[in-house]
């Protein structure tokens, strides 16, 4: 999966939880889930569970800790996919 495809699938995953449509439309690697997309922090857990299901990976607590931006999520997914 290349970067573009990864961003596209991430965008699909976060869509149900976002509260800022404008920032969502202009989503980039630098986008912050909480500050930019205004995702409720309890829903960040849903995002993480949805990522786990979509990519069939397990995100440990240490990785979850950094999961605040699109970029961090992409790095974690890529690493976990390689470990499989």
């Amino acid at each position: 999966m290349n970067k573009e495809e990864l961003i596209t699938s991430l965008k699909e995953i976060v869509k149900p939880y976002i509260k800022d449509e404008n920032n969502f439309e202009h989503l980039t690697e630098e986008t912050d889930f909480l500050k930019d997309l205004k995702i409720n922090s309890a829903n960040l857990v849903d995002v993480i569970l949805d990522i786990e299901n979509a990519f069939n990976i397990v995100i440990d607590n240490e990785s979850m800790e950094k999961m605040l931006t699109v970029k961090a999520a992409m790095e974690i997914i890529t690493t976990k996919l390689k470990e499989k």
Partner: protein
Amino acid sequence: MTGNDIVDIATAAAESNWRRKGFLEKIFTPLEQQYIQEAKQPDKTVWTLWSMKESAYKVYTRQYGGRFFAPQKLNCTLLTNVTGHVSINETIYSTTTTITDGYIYTIAVPLTAAITEVVSHCFHCNQPALAKLQQLVYKIIISYFSTSSGKEEKQLSITKNSDGIPFLFYKKEKLSTPVSITHHGQYAAFTIY
């Protein structure tokens, strides 16, 4: 220094399904999961523990800086249904929670601080647009602080730093009075201490 967090019970029920597979395990420690299992009203216990973690996180990041998403690092112990301790990296906060039919609201302070000295106001505000809601809440805080401090309302403002922590400013100068703000669904609250 305080942190606060409010959960609108109806909004939480609509936005989050804490019963979904894996949800509780990602957020809560074994002890906290036990509190939830044994609770007569598990929904209220889930959101009480969550607001304890969030409010303690807000004080912690104000004290030490940084941002992270590690709900399990914030360990809750309940002393009663509405009071407890949250520990993180050997720092302990004491928490007080208000539970009504509409919301669950927690204030956290460092263990050594007097929670009774905290100014805390909670209010209902029906403004679904997030940006407008924030402006409204800021206005209410500034009006309150202006009255209590005698500082001119027009010269007061609130700005968040890059970690998302709000600060009060007077004539563009940062004040040392810590302010903590929370809103969710139809409720908002602030603390000054």
